[in-house]
């Protein structure tokens, strides 16, 4: 978790986390060129796994150019060209978190190229759906773009940051749905459990943001406590917060624990 301090790794291990899966994302500022992404991908696939290993925490990563920097299509094309070099690294789970930010034509063009890259290299896909007012439209555009490539199997794609107005369309499409826990946006533990209870689906997982903004690395274990308060069984809690991610991620041979 390139934006977090080692105390976070220690707290996650103490709370029982078995692995950390870190998607390539926006750094809070635009990189000045492709070399910045080369260094970032090196950090995600080389240095950061070593840092996490000091806390006995296996570290995995997803690679892409995030949608906030995809508006610059020339830069995005350059970044796309270096991703295959990193795909063979042992901790790489697939292409992600790709998606849309403001739902522009350029973002959509680069999303389609990421989908092509994933199909060509038979990679899992992690999708970032847009924030706030842009999420509904963006989720629809993203699902259409993925469906347009028949090589992509929905069960190998997780659509992240779903909320009450997008979760159904994602699950109905056969995709996995990720609910991201954030203190201020996306979903709270209570709302996340509401969605899980309402959908009764087996292809949902929870994740917590661990980025440079206000976020909470222990949000998943805190949600497990909330589930216990609501009377969910230990088996149901374990299935949601551990079994489901394990099932999805085990579709790539690179995801190995222990």
């Amino acid at each position, binding site marked *: 978790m390139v934006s977090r301090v080692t105390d976070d790794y220690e707290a996650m291990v103490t709370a029982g986390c078995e692995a950390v899966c870190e998607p390539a994302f*926006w750094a809070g500022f635009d990189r000045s060129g492709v070399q910045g992404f080369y260094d970032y991908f090196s950090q995600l696939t080389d240095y950061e796994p070593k840092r996490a290993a000091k806390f006995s925490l296996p570290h995995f990563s997803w690679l892409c150019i995030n949608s*906030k920097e995809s*508006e610059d299509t020339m830069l995005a094309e350059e970044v796309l060209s270096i991703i295959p070099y990193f795909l063979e690294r042992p901790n790489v789970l697939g292409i992600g978190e790709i998606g849309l*930010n*403001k*739902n*522009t*034509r*350029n*973002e*959509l063009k680069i999303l389609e190229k990421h989908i092509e890259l994933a199909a060509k290299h038979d990679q899992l896909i992690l999708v970032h759906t*847009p*924030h*706030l*007012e*842009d*999420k*509904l*439209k963006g989720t*629809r*555009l993203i699902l259409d773009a993925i469906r347009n490539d028949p090589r992509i199997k929905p069960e190998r794609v997780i659509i992240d940051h779903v*909320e*009450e*107005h997008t979760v159904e369309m994602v699950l109905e499409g056969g995709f996995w749905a990720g609910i991201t826990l954030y203190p201020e946006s996306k979903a709270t533990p*209570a*709302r996340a459990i*509401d969605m899980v209870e309402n959908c009764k689906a087996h292809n949902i997982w929870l994740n917590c943001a661990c980025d440079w903004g206000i976020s909470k690395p222990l949000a998943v274990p805190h949600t497990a406590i909330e589930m216990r*308060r*609501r*009377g969910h069984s230990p088996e149901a809690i374990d299935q949601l917060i551990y079994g489901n991610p394990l099932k999805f991620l085990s579709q790539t041979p690179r995801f190995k624990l222990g």
Partner: protein
Amino acid sequence: MQRQQLLDLYFMDARSKVIDLAAFLDRLDRGEGEPDFRLAALRKALGELSREGPSRAKNVLLSLSDPTAEPIARSPGKGAVGAWPGEAK
């Protein structure tokens, strides 16, 4: 769960959020100048709370969302503000 159990678990949290929201609207009343589209969007979303049915959270989110279908020509910036301002003029 029983409704009584849910009230025991979540009433104080919901009460606190309702009061915060009321205080926010009072604060806006005391402010000066014209508000932008977000206040009207918030009032519209609040209307969803008094409707019957099991989809209030979904309907609040829908009321704040961009309902259009086509990708836009270029990004107006990186961030989102939480409510849709309407079609760009």
